[in-house]
């Protein structure tokens, strides 16, 4: 058995999928790491585990600081870090949410098959590329006044439905029904609004993508059927995007405000990005209202892309194609950078907690009151985006995740190679050609964006998913492989 350690601290193996960092007196709770030996090899190479140790020193942290199988070093919290704090005497950390508030995933099911789409895949990508704007400076095709932007921030998907961009079915199948009610647009700075104003419905760049995917394998037929995934070869559509510049600026603004208003607290931190505010402080309250507004923007952002994707499919296939109805239905929409109020049993007592998920997906098990009626029996759909050219997965939330990980599971593959190193190793054109040989078609706003996102720069998503499944914190439902990819 291989022995792991970081910065002179030993890491104990609990079982094949769970490790624990040696406890030090400064740590209020243990660090638990969900990983296999193969994933641990990478995890100990960067700073992620030491950043999780820093999380354990925060006030009021409950049970464990958790590291998901796809974790890597971030700023403040690691990406793939989960921590929960009591709502009355804990703390809130903007860096524990991540800069891209409500970065998340939407999955749409279709009645089409690979054979239906194959003759038109390039045309479809061209039309999608026209309708869904991506890359640097990409502008929305919706023009919002300041007052309308505030309605988006406060109203979330209710705004989208009122304006014909969303259906009731979309709302019912979205986390929080696409609207966090505590949102207050007044708590979002004018700068943040200015950054986001013309970005609603745009994909962005980096690891964000829009993919036409093929159902490649079904592991759990009954659950898959409940999620509108019926057979191998079925076409589905996945969007991975967030709250764009608006959300990033909300995080920046609040990190800076904590720095200005709580300098004594900042001085004691191992790194400034770990900045937090006591839950009872005005900063924490304001942050939660601003974060909720940014989250609502994120849901509307993905919803407007859905609207444009539906328009694009209708243009290419009509409303009926090969005797099949062309209808894109929302399977689910879930965030993986967010703070939520949730209730868990701690030492036999039910407690309301602020659960911070930074690069982790919520994974509610069956019968959770916040799940839509359609998913009460199955548990929550978990949508794990892969990287360009690799598989994505659908999993389902479990009771074990409820008990052990504050209902959290990974959020995707997680990088292993820097963009700098990737640019030296790969060329965008070469990656496009190699993927086309494998029948994966790419449309990108830039070549260099492609080389930075080469499949080899990510962790093995198959291994990340296997660990979730074996550890029981997210059970395998279906494997999706890319067919057409749109990237910024």
């Amino acid at each position, binding site marked *: 058995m291989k022995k792991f350690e970081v910065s002179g601290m030993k890491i104990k193996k609990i079982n094949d999928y769970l490790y624990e960092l040696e406890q030090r007196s400064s740590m209020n709770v243990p660090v638990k790491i969900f990983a296999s030996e193969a994933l641990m090899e990478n995890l100990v190479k*960067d700073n992620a585990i030491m950043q999780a140790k820093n999380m354990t020193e925060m006030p009021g942290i409950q049970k464990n600081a958790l590291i998901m199988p796809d974790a*890597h*070093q*971030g*700023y*403040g919290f690691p*990406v793939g870090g989960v921590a929960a704090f009591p709502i009355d005497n804990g703390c809130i950390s903007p860096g524990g949410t991540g*800069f*891209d508030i409500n970065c998340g995933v939407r999955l749409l099911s279709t009645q089409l098959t690979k054979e239906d789409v194959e003759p038109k895949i390039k045309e479809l990508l061209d039309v999608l590329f026209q309708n869904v704007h991506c*890359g*640097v*400076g990409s502008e929305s095709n919706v023009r919002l006044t300041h007052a309308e932007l505030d309605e988006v921030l406060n109203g979330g998907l209710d705004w989208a439905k009122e304006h014909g961009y969303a259906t009731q079915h979309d709302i019912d199948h979205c986390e929080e029904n696409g609207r966090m009610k505590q949102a207050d647009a007044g708590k979002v700075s004018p*700068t943040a609004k*200015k*950054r*986001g104003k013309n*970005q609603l419905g745009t994909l*962005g*760049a*980096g690891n964000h993508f829009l993919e036409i995917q093929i159902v490649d394998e079904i592991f759990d037929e009954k659950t898959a059927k409940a999620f509108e995934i019926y057979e191998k070869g079925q076409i589905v559509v996945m969007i991975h995007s967030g709250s*764009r*510049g608006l959300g*990033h*600026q909300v*995080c*920046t603004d609040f*990190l*800076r405000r904590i*720095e200005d208003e709580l300098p004594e607290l900042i001085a004691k931190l191992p*790194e*400034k*990005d770990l900045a937090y505010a006591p839950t009872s402080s005005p900063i924490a309250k304001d942050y939660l209202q601003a974060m909720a507004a940014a989250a609502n923007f994120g849901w509307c952002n993905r919803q407007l892309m859905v609207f444009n994707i539906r328009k694009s499919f209708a243009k290419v296939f009509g409303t009926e194609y090969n005797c099949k109805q062309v209808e894109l239905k929302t399977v689910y929409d879930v965030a993986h950078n967010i703070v939520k109020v949730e209730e868990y049993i701690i030492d036999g007592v039910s407690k309301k907690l602020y659960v911070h998920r930074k690069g982790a997906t919520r994974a509610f098990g069956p019968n959770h009151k916040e799940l839509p009626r359609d998913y009460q029996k199955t548990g929550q759909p978990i949508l794990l985006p892969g990287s360009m050219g690799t598989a994505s997965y659908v999993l389902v939330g479990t009771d074990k995740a409820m008990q052990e990980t504050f209902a959290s599971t990974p959020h995707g593959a*997680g*990088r*292993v*190679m*820097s*963009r*700098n*190193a990737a640019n030296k190793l790969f060329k965008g054109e070469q990656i496009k050609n190699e993927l086309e040989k494998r029948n994966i078609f790419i449309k990108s*706003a*830039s*070549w*260099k*964006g492609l080389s*930075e996102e080469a499949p080899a720069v990510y962790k093995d998503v198959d291994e990340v998913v296997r660990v979730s499944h074996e550890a029981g914190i997210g059970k395998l439902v279906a494997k999706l492989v890319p067919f057409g990819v749109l990237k*910024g």
Partner: protein
Amino acid sequence: MEPNSAIPKFKYLDHTSEAKFQANGATMEEAFAHSVLAMFNMLTDIKKVKPVLRKEIEIKAPKLDTLLFDFLDQFVVLLDTDGFIANQVDSLKITKKFEMYTLKAIVRGDSYKDYDVHGSLKAITYNDMVIKQQKNGTWIVQVVVDI
């Protein structure tokens, strides 16, 4: 910092998920100026950008790292709001009075639209931030940008 000055003095370092760079300068002010160029050169080859637009920046902060953070954050915002790509720093002055730093800069560049631009700037972080004078008297500025 004369216009069209020699090769910008910065280099990129490995960071698993984000972008990390180190800018150098004969003075701290020059290192600050080069940090802007390093940041935009991640998005496009700034040597090809025409310095046709002019921006005046003024930042006040009680600490140097906060000054650098807020200075670079201004450009992250300008990219989203104005599509502005900086490629030349005409002047950059840092003064200190009553425990407060003031940075004044004149920066030139162009709108992204005419260039091959990729990636994005999400936010500046304090992660591994360094502002340091070297033994030989030159200055280093190191920043991790969330991209």
